[in-house]
C-alpha cells in the first residue's frame, strides 16, 4: 500500500473564498480547487460520475461541491484516477460508518472495473477527512494496488483517534 497523509487546513480558506464554507459535508472536491475562482470551472476526474452513481445506488448520497454541471477530465493512462472525496467532521459523527461504506464501494467497483485485464493496475484517489473537535482536515493520497484500498479503513481510524 502506498499512501501519504498531510494536513489540508487550507481547505477552509479555499471554501470560504468560493462562498462554499459550511455546505460541504460529503462531496467530491474538484481537482483544480486550489487555483479556480469561479465554481463553473471546477474539474473532476471522469470516474467521479460512476462513483456518484454507485454510492447513490447504496443510498449514500454524495454531491459535487457545486450545483452546476461538472466538467470532467479523462486521463490518458490505463491507471484509475478517482476523485477527491471530502468527509466533513459533522457527518462522520452522525454516520460513523460512512467512510467504511464509501471505501468498500470504491474497492468493490475497482475489482469489477479491472476484471479481464492482465493485472498491475494502479489506482489513485484522495480522501479528505474533517478532524473532530478541530477545524482542520487531513488529506490521504492513495496511489497503489486495488488490494490496498480496503486497508485505508484502518489508516483513517488511526487518524480519527
Amino acid at each position, binding site marked *: 500500500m502506498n499512501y501519504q497523509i498531510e494536513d489540508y487546513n487550507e481547505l477552509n480558506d479555499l471554501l470560504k473564498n468560493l462562498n462554499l464554507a459550511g455546505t460541504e459535508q460529503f462531496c467530491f472536491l474538484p481537482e483544480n480547487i486550489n487555483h479556480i475562482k469561479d465554481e463553473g470551472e471546477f474539474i473532476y476526474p471522469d470516474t467521479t460520475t460512476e462513483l456518484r*452513481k454507485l454510492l447513490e445506488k447504496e443510498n449514500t448520497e454524495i454531491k459535487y461541491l457545486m450545483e452546476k454541471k461538472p466538467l470532467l477530465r*479523462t*486521463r490518458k493512462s490505463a491507471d484509475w484516477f478517482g476523485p477527491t472525496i471530502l468527509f466533513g467532521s459533522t457527518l462522520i459523527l452522525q454516520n460513523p460508518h460512512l467512510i467504511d461504506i464509501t471505501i468498500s464501494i470504491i474497492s468493490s467497483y475497482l475489482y469489477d472495473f479491472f476484471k479481464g485485464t*492482465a493485472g498491475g493496475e494502479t489506482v489513485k484517489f484522495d480522501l479528505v477527512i474533517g478532524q473532530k473537535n478541530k477545524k482542520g482536515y487531513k488529506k490521504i493520497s492513495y496511489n497503489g494496488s486495488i488490494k490496498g484500498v480496503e486497508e485505508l479503513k484502518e489508516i483513517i481510524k488511526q487518524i480519527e483517534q
Partner: protein
Amino acid sequence: MIALRTEVKEQFEYFNEVIKRAEKIAVFTRDCDLQKEQIEILVTYIDNLTNFKNENKEKYSEEELNLLLCLIISADAVQKELQMVISLKSNEMFVAWASLVQAQNNVSIVARNHPLSDGKYLNGYVHKLMAFEQTLFPKMFFSSVGEIIKKSICSYCKIDYEECEHIKGKMYMGELCVREIHEAELEEVSIVENPANKMCIQIEEDFEGKTVDSFTLVKRKENSDGK
C-alpha cells in the same frame, strides 16, 4: 443460481461447440484458408445470435439477455484473435494489432458482465492475449489523449450520462452501456507507455535515419493520395 430458459441453455451449449472448434483453428500454424472460413462461420454465428437476442428482448430476463450478449462478445473476441493471426501471416501488422486490442477489450467486457461467473474463468485467455502482445509485437508507445468532457450521453437510455443511473462498461437488458462523448475540449496529447486506449499507437518511428512503420521498421506504403 440464475434460472435459464431451455432455449437459452441450448444457445449456451451451442456456443461452447462453436468456440471449441474456433479455438482449435485460432493457432498460428493452422491453414490460412481454414482460418478465413472460420471467421466467416463466427460472423454468421454472431449475426444469428444477435438476431435471436433482439427478437427475445421483451421475453427474456436481464440475466438471460446479458448472457447472450456475453456469448456474442466472446465469439467476437475469438473472431478477432483469428483475424490477428491471419493479419500477421499477411504482413498486415496494424490490422493484427487492432484485432488483438479489440479481443482484449471484448474479454474485459465479458469478465465484468457474465451473469453466471465472476469472470475468473477468463484469466487464462486474458494472459494468452497479453502474451501475444508482449511476444509478437514490439514495445509500443502510444499517443494518448486527455480531454475535458462537457457533454456525454448514455448509449443505453440516451439521456445525459450524468442524469441516468447506468454505469459505462456494464450490461443492461442485453445492451452494453457506453459513455458517448458528444462535446469535449482537447487538453493534451502525450506519449505514454500504459494508455487508456491501446488503439492510439504511434504508427511511425525513426530508425537508422528514416521514418518507418513502427511495426515493420520499413517505410510505410503511401496511399493513392500520396499521404
